[in-house]
């Protein structure tokens, strides 16, 4: 049998590796990904292990690579994907080469960056100066303008003019400041200098690049006029405080012009130098971008190997390393082969030794999945990892999950949409996988593509059975219902009910699914559909639970728990069968034995009335009465009290036997354990004395058995919880399956509302305006159909299905107390490293 039914058999192995060959062997095992190493020095802290140095060197290399990557990304250079196969882990001696390469690259890049930064700073200063010279020119021109003389007058006030009659010379500073700081700067200047300075500012239109962070910033040029040295120092301090850069600005216009010329030539020179530096940087990065992914893989592989080697134990002679690992029993040969390859590669002559070990420990759970079963296995793991070698529900979930989903989601149209989406994802699997889309929601959908496809297909099937396509029905085989009313009746009555006990009904049902006429019967469709859907929910639920209980038989058989079969499985299945499966049988009896009798339609014969719709009993009331040992006399005249002869007797017997199963479940196992212990206690003294005689008092073999024994009170409590859970569970779980009905009802109703409220309005409108209206309305209807009915309803049905599997199905047999097999595999390590990066 395939391993998906149970987890793989695992063996604990001891591995002796020669020191020289260890690296190559571990590298081969990493490529294989089938071995889980155990930490043999858990008490040694991470800094004291043998290969700390190597790990640290790898960390350093990785840091350098990340730096390179960051630079490459900043320049927007595309990084080449690794062509073809992943590179193998390099030999340890290659590490030095790699280190040297990275060192060289990093140094070069840092140097280039430093140079570029210095040049850029220089460039910035010059550009700012250029702007200052250009903008201040306007201010100076204004000042020199004789017609604006009064400005100076107003600035200096009366006193200025009175002081000697000659025009006072104003001092000024010019600089550049961040634009958003201007208002605060202005206010500060005004307050600190009491309004005695004059600030002019102009915005620099083009953004300037900040050399340290390489952001684009907007700046403004300002010039401040003031008088006297005291104010000058004050102004300068404020400028410093606001991080404005001040530039010397000559007073004479001729000097300014000359300076501007100088600045322009220097800027041009700088530009060429800067261009060359950038080119060089680009060349270095492009060269690095070709290899960087490759290098990342290599470094990560080396690091992973040394990490693994750190888990190993050193032999006393220091000649060989000892490892312990979990290995799937079936793969021993492949692992041996890989080890041999590793030894050959390292050129060592001593072959590694792989020994099986006996252990009392629980091995890890390992299910080999493929891309199809993987998603289903994950649904199970999300609840709990199976105990070692326990029955795995995943293979059954492949069908039961989409089926239960489809019972709730049954609609041919919505199902087809979902199936089309799932099919597209499966069909375009490879290209979509290669795209590596980061969106989390997309990845959830894509991971579950096979689930979505199957859910869609099953929804289409149940949709056909429900005869529901966007809340309309298909009349493929011809309805079984006919109109026999004459024209006058049809004209007079608004609503008319067809009578199954007449020629209105052809006496043989629509062959596949629900009759299309029900979709049209707006006034009593729900009554019919509810009765039908509630019944199938319970029928499906009881079968599902019975299936779950049968799975537990497999577990008991496999683990050779014979006693559990007698005191757990048999009472459980009897309990469920006699009460709930019996209820299912009643439903089938009701379906077959009450209704119109062909050939005697509308007859008043008392025998025929007894089997007519008039006498059909309620299954729910019958079931409740059965549990209460009550016989309700039938209130309707002419009807029988029972559905079949001897019903009362059978029902009483069933309930009593079912109730008798409860104490068996409750006390059976504890009683058995107690008896077994007593027997052992009787035979033990004998064994003890024998053992004592043989090896001097210590009975080593018997000692461990005692430790495994639980307190008997604990056994009782455990069993009581288990029994109560099962008995109460079977009631509540049966009721819980009614969610199949509830969700399917809700889905059908929502679809109908969407049709009636939107599309119907559009279809009924006339004329060419009606066409336009329909166009708009269709968009709305389609949007609601996809977003609410397919996506949201799909999600809620999915969650309910998940619950039905986790709680109602798996609680019958699944312990889920195992732990996952996590093999040492480069693939996993590289994947997780790649994800952490993003």
């Amino acid at each position: 049998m395939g391993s998906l039914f149970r987890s793989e058999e695992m063996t604990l192995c001891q591995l002796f590796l020669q020191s020289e060959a260890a690296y190559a062997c571990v590298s081969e095992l990493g490529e294989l990904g089938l071995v889980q190493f155990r930490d043999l020095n858990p008490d040694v802290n991470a800094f004291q292990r043998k290969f700390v140095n190597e790990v640290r060197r790898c960390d350093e290399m990785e840091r350098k690579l990340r730096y390179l990557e960051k630079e490459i990304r900043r320049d927007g250079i595309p990084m080449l994907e690794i062509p073809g196969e992943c590179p193998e882990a390099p030999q340890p001696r290659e590490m030095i080469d790699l280190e040297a390469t990275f060192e060289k690259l990093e140094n070069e890049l840092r140097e280039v960056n430093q140079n570029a930064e210095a040049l850029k700073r220089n460039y910035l200063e010059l550009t700012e100066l250029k702007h200052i010279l250009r903008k201040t020119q306007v201010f100076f021109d204004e000042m020199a303008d004789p017609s604006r003389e009064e400005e100076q007058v107003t600035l200096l006030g009366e006193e200025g003019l009175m002081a000697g009659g000659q025009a006072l010379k104003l001092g000024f500073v010019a600089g550049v400041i961040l634009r958003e700081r201007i208002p605060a700067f202005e206010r500060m200047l005004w307050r600190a200098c009491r309004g005695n300075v004059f600030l002019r500012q102009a915005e620099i239109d083009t953004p300037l690049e900040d050399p340290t962070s390489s952001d684009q910033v907007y700046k403004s040029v300002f010039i401040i006029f003031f008088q006297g040295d005291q104010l000058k120092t004050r102004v300068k301090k404020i400028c410093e405080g606001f991080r404005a850069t001040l530039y010397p600005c000559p007073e004479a216009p001729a000097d300014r012009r000359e300076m501007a010329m100088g600045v322009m030539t220097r800027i041009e020179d700088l530009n060429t130098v800067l261009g060359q530096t950038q080119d060089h940087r680009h060349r270095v990065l492009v060269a690095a971008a070709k290899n960087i992914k490759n290098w990342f893989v290599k470094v990560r592989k080396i690091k992973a190997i040394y990490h693994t080697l750190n888990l190993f134990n050193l032999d006393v002679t220091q000649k060989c390393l000892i490892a312990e690992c979990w290995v799937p029993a079936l793969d021993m040969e492949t692992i041996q082969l890989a080890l041999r390859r590793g030894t050959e590669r390292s050129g060592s002559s001593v072959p590694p030794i792989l020994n099986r070990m006996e252990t009392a420990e629980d091995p890890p759970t390992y299910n080999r999945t493929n891309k199809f079963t993987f998603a289903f296995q994950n649904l199970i793991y999300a609840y709990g990892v199976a105990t070692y070698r326990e029955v795995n529900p995943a293979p059954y979930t492949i069908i039961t999950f989409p089926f239960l989903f489809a019972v709730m989601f049954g609609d041919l149209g919505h199902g087809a949409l979902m199936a089309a989406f799932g099919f597209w994802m499966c069909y375009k699997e490879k290209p979509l996988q290669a795209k590596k889309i980061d969106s989390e929601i997309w990845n959830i959908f894509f991971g579950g593509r096979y689930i979505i496809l199957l859910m869609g297909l099953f929804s289409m099937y149940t949709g056909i059975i429900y005869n529901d396509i966007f809340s309309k029905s298909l009349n493929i085989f011809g309805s079984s219902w006919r109109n026999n009313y004459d024209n006058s009746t049809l004209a007079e009555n608004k609503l008319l009910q067809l009578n199954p006990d007449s020629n209105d009904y052809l006496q043989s049902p629509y062959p596949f699914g629900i009759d299309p006429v029900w979709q049209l019967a707006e006034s009593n469709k729900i009554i019919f559909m509810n009765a039908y859907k509630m019944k199938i929910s319970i029928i499906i639920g009881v079968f599902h639970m019975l299936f779950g209980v049968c799975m537990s038989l497999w577990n008991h058989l496999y683990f050779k728990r014979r006693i559990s079969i007698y005191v757990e499985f048999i009472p459980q299945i009897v309990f469920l069968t006699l009460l709930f499966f019996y209820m299912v049988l009643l439903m089938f009896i009701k379906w077959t034995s009450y209704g119109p009798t062909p050939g005697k339609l509308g007859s008043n014969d008392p025998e025929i009335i007894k089997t007519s719709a008039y006498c059909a009993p309620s299954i729910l009331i019958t079931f409740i009465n059965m549990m209460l040992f009550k016989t309700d006399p039938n209130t309707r005249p002419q009807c029988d009290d029972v559905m079949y002869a001897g019903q009362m007797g059978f029902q009483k017997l069933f309930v009593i036997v079912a109730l008798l199963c409860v104490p068996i479940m409750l006390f059976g196992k504890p009683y058995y354990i107690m008896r077994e212990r007593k027997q052992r206690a009787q035979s033990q003294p004998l064994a003890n004395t024998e053992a004592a005689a043989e090896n001097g008092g210590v009975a080593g073999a018997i000692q461990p058995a005692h430790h495994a024994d639980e307190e008997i009170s604990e056994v009782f409590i455990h069993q009581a919880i288990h029994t109560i859970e099962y008995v109460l569970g079977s009631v509540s779980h049966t009721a819980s399956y009614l969610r199949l009905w509830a969700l399917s009802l809700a889905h059908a109703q929502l679809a109908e509302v969407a049709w009636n409220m939107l599309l119907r309005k559009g279809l009924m409108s006339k004329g060419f305006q009606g066409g336009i209206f329909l166009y708009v309305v269709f968009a709305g209807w389609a949007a609601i159909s996809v977003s609410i009915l397919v996506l949201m309803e799909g999600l809620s049905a999915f969650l309910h299905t998940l619950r039905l599997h986790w709680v109602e199905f798996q609680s019958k047999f699944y312990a889920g107390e195992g732990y996952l097999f996590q093999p040492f595999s480069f693939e996993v390590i590289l994947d997780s490293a790649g994800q952490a990066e993003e």
Partner: protein
Amino acid sequence: MGASFVPITIFTVLWGVVGIVCPIFAPKGPNRGIIQVVLMLTAATCWLFWLCAYMAQMNPLIGPRLNNETLIWIAHTWVSFVCTCLHLLVRDFWITRYLNNKHCVTS
């Protein structure tokens, strides 16, 4: 009672083939077990679901209550797709007469 032989046989045999015959011929390989389980469960669930729908309608306890306009429309237009196709394909007199008696043409 209300059951008719043909549909029950057809669908039971159909799902029986899927669930019992197909698993025997499942391709050999590591996934054989999974394929068999998938086929059997598909057949079991789908057959059960169809059966329930069929049996729930075998002996209807109530009839549909319809709008009079809907009833008139049904009386005039509802000839099943399958019957129409049969009419078109097989112009044989006997079949037409048989169908007339049985199912297709109403008032």
